[in-house]
């Protein structure tokens, strides 16, 4: 008996890892955009939803999950680039509340458009045949697709880290997040850095969406709850801190998953209780620096 529940517990830890991976992808996008531009993208959840729907369309048109997995985030990223140009750029220099308000309006529009285009009933995405079924992990069987999500998240995070730490563009991004004025004085176009980062951040939301699609399906409201939870992840991790976003995302994934196991009724509220505790003990988040864009 103890053996069985231990195996179930281990499976739950893996489930938490999957959930955490989705949180991390969303939170890193939010945090990256915020760290650089002090813009909070309220429509991040709507873009996550679009990632799943774009994935559905690509999957049904081309029949290839690989195409969908690569093209859906790119399409969302391109939409993000357009958003930055048209919507966010006019608000630079205004109160940081304004982009938050504007992207809130944008998310209302996008979610309603999705309802009009794809209907009010959710759609299901099938994982590719190679990833269907389950793998024997020794102690329990675990869905192959979920392991794949963990792997993709890890690869993308590693790539992002290499990009930020080892390339010239990455160097520029890090410099611009620390001191945009100095970067501008050195003759770089900070506006273009912001543009690129907005595209990357929104693209990551799209990736999270297409990855979540085969697990949760695609529906218009799918981004609403998760964006609020991602905000919590970012606040707990410390806004603008990428390491914080990763650790806090994985941590909250575990907290939610294990609470679902032990006390399912508390699963939805545990995130917020956790946040309240962290705020009491460390107001600036686990890895946050106090005073960043406050």
């Amino acid at each position, binding site marked *: 008996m103890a053996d069985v529940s231990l195996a179930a517990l281990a499976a739950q830890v893996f489930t938490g890892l999957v959930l955490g991976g989705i949180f991390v992808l969303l939170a890193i996008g939010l945090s990256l955009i*915020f760290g650089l531009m*002090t813009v*909070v993208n309220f429509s991040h959840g709507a873009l996550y939803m679009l990632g799943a729907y774009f994935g559905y369309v690509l999957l049904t048109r081309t029949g290839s999950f690989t195409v969908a997995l690569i093209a859906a985030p790119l399409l969302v990223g391109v939409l993000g680039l357009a958003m930055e140009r048209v*919507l966010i750029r*006019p*608000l630079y220099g*205004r*109160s*940081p*509340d*304004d982009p*938050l*308000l*504007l992207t*809130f*309006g*944008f*998310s*209302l*529009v996008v*979610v*309603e*458009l999705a*309802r*009009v285009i794809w209907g009010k009933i959710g759609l299901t995405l099938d994982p590719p045949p190679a990833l269907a079924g389950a793998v024997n992990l020794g102690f329990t069987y675990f869905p192959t697709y979920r392991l794949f999500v963990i792997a993709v998240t890890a690869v993308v995070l590693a790539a992002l880290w290499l990009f930020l730490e080892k390339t010239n563009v990455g160097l520029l991004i890090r410099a611009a997040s620390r001191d945009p004025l100095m970067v501008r004085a050195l003759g770089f176009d900070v506006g273009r850095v912001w543009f690129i980062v907005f595209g990357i951040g929104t693209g990551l939301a799209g990736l999270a969406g297409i990855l979540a699609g085969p697990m949760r399906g695609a529906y218009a409201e799918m981004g*609403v*709850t998760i964006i*609020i939870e991602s*905000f*919590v992840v*970012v*606040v707990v991790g410390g*806004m603008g801190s990428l390491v914080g976003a990763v650790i806090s995302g994985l941590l909250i994934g575990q907290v939610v998953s294990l609470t679902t196991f032990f006390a399912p*009724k508390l699963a*939805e*509220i545990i*995130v*917020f*209780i956790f*946040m*309240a505790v962290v*705020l*009491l003990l460390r*107001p*600036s988040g686990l890895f946050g620096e106090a005073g960043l*864009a*406050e």
Partner: protein
Amino acid sequence: MSGAVAWIRRHPVVCFFVFFAIFPWLVPYRSLATQVLIYGLFALGFNLLYGYTGLLSFGAAAYWGLGAYGTGIALAKLKVTSLWLALGAGLGLALIGGALFGFFCLRRRGIYFAMLTLAFAQLLYFIGFHLADWTGGDDGLRGITVPPVVLGGWRISLDRSVVFYYFALVLVGLAVLVLKRILDSPFGAVLQAIRENTDRATACGYDIARIKHLSFVFYALFCGLAGALDALRLTVVPIESLHWSTSGQVVIMTLLGGAGTFFGPFVGAATYLVLEDAISVWTESWPLAIGGIFMVFVLFLPKGIWGTLTGGFHGR
């Protein structure tokens, strides 16, 4: 025109009562007038925090919902027979919620504050959802019977919609009067100082943390009274009262009307509700329309309707 505006500025509360006394005869049907009053009060509370103190909250639904459920539960579950006691229960819950959540949310400033208010409101939404014995859960709280108003020897039934309108007008009018007193007091001046420059206000020696917290509690009380009145109006409390979209609604209303202006919240609530009424006849994609309109306002008309007409404040 400018003379009239100046007179309105000097006597806003008088103007409020005169205008809303005849308002039910200016709108297509009376229930819309009552809604404008109640949502106007909701937006007024939000405006105290955002427009005057400079704190953007995305969690107003929490206090609206606490007010509504407090009053609703008192009437439907605890069978309270005094209207004042039921309203007091709603206000009491909103007060406790505001004091508690305000304490947590105000540990961070700016953008973080907005996200925290949203998160705590979402927490209450889930609690309301799961405490179905008390709140009715997904089905909403039903079975609210509105007791008559008892005041001295008077006993007035609120069953007729026109009577309920004027009852709401008296309470909302009192709230408007309280807001006017707050804004005219030194406390109100400090609120606006915090909005303009928090660091300088701190340097002037004001206890910023306490003043912000007090502002937050007033905001919760105004929102709670609005929610309580809405529970009486509908005789039902839907779970959506606590939903984040309710918080979004009040943000939109206030910005449409003009944040930081005295009448902006009522202008915004009226605009929102009339538009919703008109557009819903054409299409069920109302969020698409209001989302688009809201974006246009943020981009091009940040002072809102009333603010643009009278030259009010926006942003920091």
